[in-house]
């Protein structure tokens, strides 16, 4: 049996024991299938959790903000294509940003976008950490995530590509996001993230280095694409083998970087 506790504020919920519920799209699946594995659910109705606010060059996205809210928010236009790639419309009305940060392989497409954009997570007790550090320790992470803080990103700075077998909806064979800074034709700096290519979304640092200062054309991005596997550790799953993922990752990275169809 699964007991449910509902709290109106983050502070009240902090001491409670149980699984923090975002949209429940992963947790309720587990409750439906194996309720004994989810003894307690913590539901938090604090409106602060579903708020998006801008301060300086950063945007704070509440952990309870849904994919649909991301798609509709003018300050998050760069992330709208990422949110739109997740599930169907009903799922997007439910799935939250906070839940996506914990979503296991092959999920976590939104986290890939956040990782490329340069995000930090902020816990309810005020702790703040880089998203990359959070992802490294997330299996044993305790506490309530309050917000994700992301550097303001213009739509043309963030490129995103989701590779899936069924379209428009389908789980990721991989997803790729890249934040490119620089003039239109060359990249002065880049942050590249892959999803479904390791236990958590991962940055492709070798590819980032290889992309610095190069022209954004097929020849220019070639070395970066060839280097992308250095930081990735794809696995076999029902969607694709590790071998296949490794074969196609450089090609999809090129398509993502150059906006090829």
């Amino acid at each position, binding site marked *: 049996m*699964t007991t449910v506790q509902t709290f109106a504020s983050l502070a009240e919920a902090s001491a409670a024991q149980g699984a923090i519920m975002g*949209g*429940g799209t992963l947790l309720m699946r587990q409750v439906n299938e194996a309720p004994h594995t989810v003894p307690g659910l913590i539901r938090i109705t604090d409106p602060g959790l579903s708020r998006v606010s801008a301060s300086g060059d950063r945007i704070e996205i509440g952990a309870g903000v849904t994919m649909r809210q991301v798609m509709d928010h003018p300050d998050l236009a760069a992330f709208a294509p990422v949110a739109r790639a997740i599930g169907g*419309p009903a*799922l997007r009305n439910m799935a939250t940003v906070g839940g996506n940060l914990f979503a296991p392989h092959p999920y976590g497409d939104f986290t890939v976008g956040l990782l490329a954009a340069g995000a930090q997570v902020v816990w309810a007790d005020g702790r703040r950490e880089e998203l990359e550090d959070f992802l490294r320790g997330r299996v044993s992470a305790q506490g309530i995530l309050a917000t994700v803080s992301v550097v303001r990103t213009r739509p043309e700075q963030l490129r995103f590509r989701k590779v899936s077998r069924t379209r428009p909806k389908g789980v990721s064979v991989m997803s790729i996001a890249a934040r490119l800074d620089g003039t239109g034709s060359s990249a002065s700096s880049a942050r590249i993230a892959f999803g479904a290519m390791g236990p958590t979304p991962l940055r492709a640092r070798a590819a980032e280095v290889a992309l610095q200062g190069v022209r954004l054309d097929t020849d220019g991005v070639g070395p970066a694409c060839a280097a992308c596997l250095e930081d990735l550790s794809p696995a076999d799953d029902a969607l694709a083998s590790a071998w296949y993922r490794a074969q196609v990752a450089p090609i999809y990275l090129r398509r993502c970087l150059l906006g090829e169809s």
Partner: protein
Amino acid sequence: MPKKPMSFTLNDAETGVFVEEGQNLLEALRRGAGDLSPKFGCGQGTCGACTVLIDGAPHLSCLTLAEAAASRRVETTGGLAAGPELHPLQTAFMEGFAAQCGFCTGGMLMVAKALLAENPRPTREEVIEAISGNLCRCTGYGPIVDAILTAAARMQGRAA
């Protein structure tokens, strides 16, 4: 097992049910409120047969904690017709053979209703996107997309 009382609006009627701890909204609707129009297909969010509108927006009721719907406005296919008058979407589905076994139909109708409320003149691509979370094993989707476009046109007084 203790049950919690919960009240909400179901298709414009104030409704009260007792929900078990951890129960999902689909079960509360079917077993508690006796509305059998949302269907159980997978219980995993994959098929969309259980889709209902909560405050006008499509939700997968099998993945919605029942008590999270307290005091909210829930709509199901059971409330689409006004007495003997079918909703234009239902008429278009019937005429266009957009339902064969009918198992997916309740979910399809609800996402279509939400789409047309937000976007009365959707393109074919927008309709396909709107039903992308709903599986149909019978029709091949074409008749469903056509029926939604036909209903949209009729609701606007246009020719399809």
